[in-house]
């Protein structure tokens, strides 16, 4: 029988290991991945970082009515060095994407990114702006996208639940599943350059190739 006064251990128990029915919920026999992921998901620390309108709804989610601490996430850290989760809450401009990539690089692994709202997911209503990046996933990897303009607190919490599920599905022994369980540190993402417009250094080879072919084409057509 499950004793509801105590912590129910069924979420921690590995279902592949048989356990007598009377002990279920009171005893957990589990593996390292499961207990590790369970702890991580129950105490995800987001970065205290707001960009635009969505940040207001993020604060409302953290406040008393919606109460983010039910997810163990109320410990918002102001320093990226202490944060597990980057909530990109708002429009990402070309000017701002440089600090965001830097913040992402400063976060210790394992780290997750949640794109909150239409702008962070794909540019949103400002997607055609000359200073707007069409989604933060052009620069850093995103784990969960939450639609809305801005998403309601309920939608954001749904995004948190989706993120927790993703965390719980990752395995320490499968080093291919996530970059940070392989040997050595992961590569940093190169900072975009604010030249005459934004330039992504990762595209350097393509840029060079295209610049050359444009010249060849101009010579061929006598332009």
């Amino acid at each position, binding site marked *: 029988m499950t004793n509801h006064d105590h912590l129910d251990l069924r979420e921690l128990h590995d279902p592949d290991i048989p356990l007598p029915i009377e002990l279920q919920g009171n005893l957990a026999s589990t593996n390292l991945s499961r207990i590790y992921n369970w702890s991580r998901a129950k105490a995800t620390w987001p970065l205290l970082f707001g960009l635009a309108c969505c940040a207001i709804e993020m604060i409302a989610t953290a406040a008393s009515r919606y109460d983010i601490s039910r997810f163990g996430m109320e410990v918002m850290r102001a320093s990226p060095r202490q944060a597990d989760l980057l909530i990109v809450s708002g429009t990402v401009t070309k000017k701002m994407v440089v600090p965001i990539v830097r913040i992402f690089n400063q976060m210790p692994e394992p780290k997750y990114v949640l794109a909150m709202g239409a702008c962070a997911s794909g540019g949103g209503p*400002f997607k055609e702006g000359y200073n707007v990046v069409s*989604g933060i996933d052009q620069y850093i990897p995103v784990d969960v996208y939450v639609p809305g303009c801005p998403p309601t607190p309920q939608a954001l919490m749904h995004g948190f639940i989706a993120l927790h599920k993703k965390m719980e599905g990752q395995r320490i022994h499968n080093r291919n599943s996530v970059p940070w369980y392989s040997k050595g540190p992961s590569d940093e993402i190169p900072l975009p350059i*604010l030249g005459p417009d934004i330039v992504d250094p990762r595209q350097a080879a393509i840029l060079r190739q295209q610049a050359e072919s444009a*010249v060849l084409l101009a010579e061929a057509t006598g332009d």
Partner: protein
Amino acid sequence: MVENVLVQDPIQEALAGLARFGGAVQADDRQNYEGIVVDRAALPDVALVLRDELGYDYLSSVTGVDYLGFGDYFEVVYHAYRTSGGKGLTLKTRTPRDVATVPSVVSVWPGADFQEREAYDLMGIHFTGHPNLKRILMWEGFEGHPLRKDWQEAYFESEHKPFESRWPGGNVRRSEEYNPFGKNVKYPAGFTMDKVRDISEVDHYEGLNLGVQIEGSGIRTDKLVVNLGPHHPSTHGVFRMVCTLNGETVETLEPVMGYLHRNHEKIGERNTWIMNMPYTDRLDYISSMSNNHGYALAVENLMLKNQVKGYNQPTERTEVIRVLMVELTRYVNHLWSIGFLLNDLGAFFTPALYAIFERELILDFFEATAGSRMMCNYMRFGGVFKDIPERMMAHAVLENDMIRDVDTMEFLHNLIFERLPNFTDEFDRLLTKNEIVFNRTRGVGILTAEQAIAVSAAGPVLRASGVPYDVRKADPYSIYPDLEFDIPIGTYGDVYDRYLVRLEEMRQSVRILQQIYPRLKETAGQSILGIDAYSPRIPNGGESYGRVENPKGELGYYVVGVPGKEFDQNPWRYHIRAPSFINLTALEQMCVGHKVADLVVILGSIDIVLGETDR
């Protein structure tokens, strides 16, 4: 308040007062335009006479308009007002497009500082004599001046929406994917990455004399440069301050903005008139309803000038609902602002939690009426989107853990007559006499009345300095003349006064709401639409400046219809006078000499929101 005795037409009066300039000053005689056109060489002298002799001491807005194809010149438009109240004067000057130079008026109206920099950044107009003319929203090194009519975005398809790729196909072309310096490369042959230079950060540190030993202090020490932001929890968004410290004392401070520059104005010129309404929500995203109101007023004014067929003035019901929404918004904004000011003072989140809870009640009403908690997109030209519903769901106040289906008018009655007044008193009781609040804010960030007027500060910042200037009284709009309310003012112009002014404004908002409630009952059933049928081709040529007293200060919209056309879909120029942006002009003089810990408090007391600052 000085009684406004000048009842004559401001343009005739200005022309008479400026007669000594002869042909350099003329009335603007284009159809549906108003104000005076000044020869650019005479501009600083004219500005000085206007300020010192005619009393136009308050410069509301400075912006540029590109009349490409309609005379091929830039026009710089100034909106000047008297702090004693009354109608304003629109002042214009022209410059050829190829060598665009206009003398700066910063020496006359220091409030022009950031606005001239913005016009330089986005339009490429050089203001000669400006003390610090460099880009403000885009980064240094960016190619082009985006608001010029011949500057086209990377995705450019056509001058106005809907774009062919989007409708009916739905293939959106995003700016980032069409970045000319990305995969659609425009570099010459032999290009390598090290030819791309990033000079965007250089100018922030110029002239700071880094590494120079501070003399006379007795210890060997350097000045310290501290970057606050753009990622900092107390900058209220992605705002950045580059400051130099001597010990803990702030010596210089430079605000750096543009991290949330979302190209509102360029997008607004591509949009049809009505399509801009939801974009205005995202300016000051805490008070979307009053942003809507300002834009509606500007366009309604233009429709009146053009005598648009089918347009009727807003009905009484419309005005009552608008004021209801706007005053609720003001209450919400001040709740938020005070809550987060206390956050900046170190009372981490407890006062803000109280404030946010009351805010949720009002958001429930907004959600029931407009369909959205924050981005209400509620007002229309001549009307509002929808009447308030008969019943609504009250989510925030649960009874037995149940969401309640309540009568909206009862909900409002409870809110306006009990809940909000009681909460204001409670907030007052908890905070006003708190010793820590008092000691941390009294005497900090002082702005005198003269300084506040000079830098065009607006809203609670201006009033806390003792200037009783409120657009609702000084240049009334909507039904505000019928309503009784006071304008609270401060004495010392410090952070504490700004806090007190906001608190008192919350009380005055409730007072207005209590007068609105019976009128809401009286007008039930009246039409809420001022226009016969929806038409996107609303106003045509001419200019209009609509301004409202937003919770953060005077919000102005300067809109220009396409010149020389009977009808056109989109505005030729759409400019926003953002109070958060212009209030920041005063930041440096408020902060210098204070300790670094007071920086965030002073910034918090200005109450900026970055959506509006950077637009």
